[in-house]
């Protein structure tokens, strides 16, 4: 079973695990990754600490792009199911951004597919992050070379 959702509201991790496993007895391992809004304090000025993050996306393309990514994961690993929930809109530090869940008979498939899904979501799904600082200013987050490298590993 593949569940994909793009939504403004938060997700319930336990409910999503329950929906994915759903009483099945052929699952040996569940992998999970949760991306969280981090109050980046690495800027020199406290005024540039992150007050909020806004996720913009391309509504008519986003779910389709995620479907292609989950299909690729299901082609590469023997998965019983996977779940991707990505939030959009404005979020505060500590709030959840994205949930990746994978279920497989064996742990390595679940672990690898989880890492693969989050790596590909970062570089192959149409989302854009805008950071809002304490002083009210904001910047669009720049894509990282390390994310491209992580994607290219697979």
């Amino acid at each position, binding site marked *: 079973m593949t569940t994909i959702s793009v939504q403004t509201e938060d997700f319930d991790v336990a409910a999503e695990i329950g929906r994915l496993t759903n009483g099945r007895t052929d699952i040996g391992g569940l992998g999970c990754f949760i*991306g969280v809004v981090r109050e980046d304090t690495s800027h020199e000025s406290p005024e540039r600490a992150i007050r909020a993050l806004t*996720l*913009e*996306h*391309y509504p*008519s*393309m986003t779910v*389709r*792009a995620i479907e292609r990514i989950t299909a690729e994961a299901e082609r590469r690993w023997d998965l019983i199911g996977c779940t991707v929930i*990505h939030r959009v809109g404005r979020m505060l530090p500590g709030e959840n*951004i*994205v949930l990746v869940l994978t279920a497989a008979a064996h742990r390595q498939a679940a672990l690898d597919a989880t890492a693969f899904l*989050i*790596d590909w*979501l*970062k*570089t*192959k*799904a*149409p*989302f*854009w*992050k*805008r950071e809002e600082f304490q002083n009210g200013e904001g910047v*669009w*987050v*720049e*894509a990282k070379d390390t*994310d491209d490298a992580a994607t290219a590993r697979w």
Partner: protein
Amino acid sequence: MAAPLSIVYFAWVRERVGVSEESLSPPDSVATVADLVTWLSNLDQRHAAAFKDRETVRCAVNHEFADTSTVLRPGDEVAFFPPVTGG
């Protein structure tokens, strides 16, 4: 290009153009995404600003990531945006 294209913008590309969506009918000489970017860049200052760093602008045609050599057809939805940063 006989019929208009639907052109959509995201993130800072959208901010620079000043609109999130527009319907434009480029001349017949516009055959590919690269042609479209060149034509848009010469349209006005806002479009020129959006495509100033052409190398950093990505695109999708009909909801699939595309590159500058992609051939356009009438009625296509063409999206321009910075490299994605979700996840």
